[in-house]
């Protein structure tokens, strides 16, 4: 192996370790992944936004935003609500004065409101009555409201806290108040003890204003853990099956190998897709299903190793000593299969990650309480959807795609190096 090759190996290892560490410590290195800021919309990497929740609830005696003295600058501009409805497949717009509107120009700050509250930015553009409805208006969502705010005068809300972090006083424009609710999209700035409180969006935000860096790291947690756990499942099932087949030999072996042959010829991805549609897509099911796809090769490897080892002297000695079969298999046979097994495991982890991401990509990913969990595949799919017609929101696609690509490349590279170390014949044509 050349010195340059060794250097690249360290590079892969470092990249992988960095990604794993970032994903593992995601709560410490990234903001909250589910914090919605619909008024922000999709913003490019490096944007800063005011660190406020969707609704700021302040009350005397309740926990405050931190620090001693917090100052919110609130935009109290007028809000106009337009009712947009689908009428016989055409768009109908009713203005705030209950009169039909022919044309409605949407500023970038226009927000859509549905029965469940804010649903995100309406996007800049022009709506025409009688024309084709915008994408957010369809049969399942036939009535929506668009809120357009004209910027108005800024009012400051001062919140003073006691030493225990509880709110002692709320003052708006010199008037003391008992409680106050501020919509997050109206807060222009937040200063705590004289320092502006903002969130840095390292990789930008998605169309709902969620931090992409945080989502990518949390998605990586899911992808990586499915990769590792499903690989372990595959190793356990495969080694047991292979060890039994190789150890028993004879007719049992022939039957078990025929079983592997049959299973190997099944297009498993489709069976997994089918499984995902008929079962609830819990994390446990993913571990089991993806592990079950991968165990066949493990079984073949272990069986071949066990067959080769079964006739060796130390196994003969173990049998002559009267050791029970399980002890021979677990203590003497399986440890001798570890080398090839480890290389195979190193190749299986990226394969499982790809399968999990693929399932997420096609919309059949892991669900938790009926809600799909973020994973690299799902983020790539959402990024592709949100690219925009001119492809200007490329960070939404490129950030998760490059994270996944780097992780997969590093895993492959390391596995390939390990294989070449352990098996000099496999050194790809002598190089």
């Amino acid at each position, binding site marked *: 192996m050349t010195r340059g090759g060794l250097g690249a190996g360290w590079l892969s290892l470092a990249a992988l370790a960095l990604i794993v560490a970032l994903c593992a410590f995601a709560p410490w290195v990234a903001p909250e992944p589910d914090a919605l800021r619909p008024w922000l919309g999709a913003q490019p990497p490096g944007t800063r936004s005011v660190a406020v929740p969707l609704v700021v609830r302040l009350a005397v005696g309740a926990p405050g935003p931190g620090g001693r003295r917090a100052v919110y600058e609130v935009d109290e501009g007028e809000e106009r609500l337009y009712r947009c409805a689908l009428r016989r497949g055409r768009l109908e717009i009713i203005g705030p004065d209950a009169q039909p509107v022919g044309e409605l120009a949407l500023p970038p700050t226009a927000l859509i409101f549905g029965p469940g509250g804010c649903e995100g930015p309406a996007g800049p553009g022009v709506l025409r009555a009688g024309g084709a409805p915008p994408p957010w208006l369809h049969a399942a969502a036939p009535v929506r409201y668009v809120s357009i705010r004209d910027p108005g005068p800024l009012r400051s809300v001062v919140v003073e806290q006691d030493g225990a972090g509880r709110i002692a006083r709320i003052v708006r424009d010199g008037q003391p108040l008992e409680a106050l609710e501020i919509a997050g999209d109206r807060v222009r700035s937040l200063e705590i003890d004289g320092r502006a409180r903002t969130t840095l969006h390292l990789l930008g935000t998605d169309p709902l204003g969620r931090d992409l860096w945080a989502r990518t790291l949390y998605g990586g947690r899911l992808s990586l853990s499915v990769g590792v756990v499903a690989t372990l499942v595959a190793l356990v099932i495969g080694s047991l099956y292979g060890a039994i087949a190789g150890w028993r030999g004879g007719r049992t072996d022939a039957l078990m190998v025929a079983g592997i042959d*049959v299973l190997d010829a099944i297009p498993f991805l489709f069976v997994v897709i089918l499984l995902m549609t008929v079962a609830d897509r819990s994390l446990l099911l993913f571990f089991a299903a993806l592990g079950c796809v991968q165990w066949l090769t493990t079984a073949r490897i272990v069986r071949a190793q066990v067959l080769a080892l079964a006739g060796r002297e130390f196994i003969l000695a173990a049998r002559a000593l009267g050791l029970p079969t399980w002890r021979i298999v677990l203590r003497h046979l399986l440890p001798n299969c570890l080398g090839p097994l480890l290389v195979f495991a190193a190749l299986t982890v990226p394969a499982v990650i790809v399968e999990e991401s693929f399932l997420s990509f096609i919309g059949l990913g892991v669900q938790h309480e009926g809600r799909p969990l973020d994973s690299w595949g799902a983020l790539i799919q959402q990024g592709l959807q949100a690219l925009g017609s001119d492809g200007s929101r490329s960070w939404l696609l490129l950030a998760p795609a490059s994270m996944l*690509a780097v992780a997969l490349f590093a895993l492959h590279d390391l596995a390939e190096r390990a294989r070449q170390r352990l098996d000099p014949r496999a050194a790809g*044509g002598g190089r």
Partner: protein
Amino acid sequence: MSFLARRLLLAPCVLLVVALATFAMVRLAKGGPFDAERELPAEVKAALAARLGWDRPLPEQFLRTLVGVADGSLPTLSPGQSVGAVLAPRAAVTATLGAVAFALVVVLGLGWAVLATRWSGSALDRALTHGTIACIALPSFVIGPVLAWLVGVRLGWLPPLGWGGAAHLVLPALTLAIVPAARLARLARAALAHEEHSDHVRTARAKGCGPWRVLLQHILRPALPPVVAYLGPLAAWLLTGSVAVELVFAVPGLGAEMVQAAINRDHNLVLALTLWFALAVVACNLLADLAVAALDPRVRLT
């Protein structure tokens, strides 16, 4: 048992296992296509079950499903549309895309390996060793969106999505072909390198055979069996791998339909697709096995 008989026996076994497994999964599952929305009246459910044939005994259902998949008459959730009517036009699209991608894989992969062997140790050869690893690591649902964004949208050279003329074929076929072409190039390069130093090649060189003739007649021919053995599963892989590609590029093929049917819980359609894909995979593997046996007589003895 001879090689051929064993292979021919295995194929129906596989199909039967797939059919039983998929049928059991669909029938034993709790969720049906009508569960998510509001409750349906009992007589509507009964009528739907009768139309889909779900009110009959399970063994009869299984046989009817098999027959219905075979002749395409199995009803889908959409009224009046049989499985055959839904899938036939889409099968043509997927077959076209798969065939173009397959040709690309063979030309790019084998061509690169042959050229790298001809000029062994050159920059081309080194690029093969190092460049292909990067390609192998990337899944099609990463390559596809990035290509669609870069070539289709930013540069605007090719249509980023849709189906129509030859221009629409380029990006999906390329996305499908990159990974298997890289794998094939590595595999073929290793096989060629193995043959390059064998005795018969040295003899041919010693007798004054030209470099191209040695390469194509004496090195390539014995190196073909592993390549062909890879191409069989590859044809099947192009079918399965095309799911993501068809979704990315909005190609109206079987893979996109599979995902849509799965999300709609159109169990009959998913079952039919799974069985057809299984048949394609088994047939491709069988063909590859037979081709390898024809190319390399030693295989037939094992």
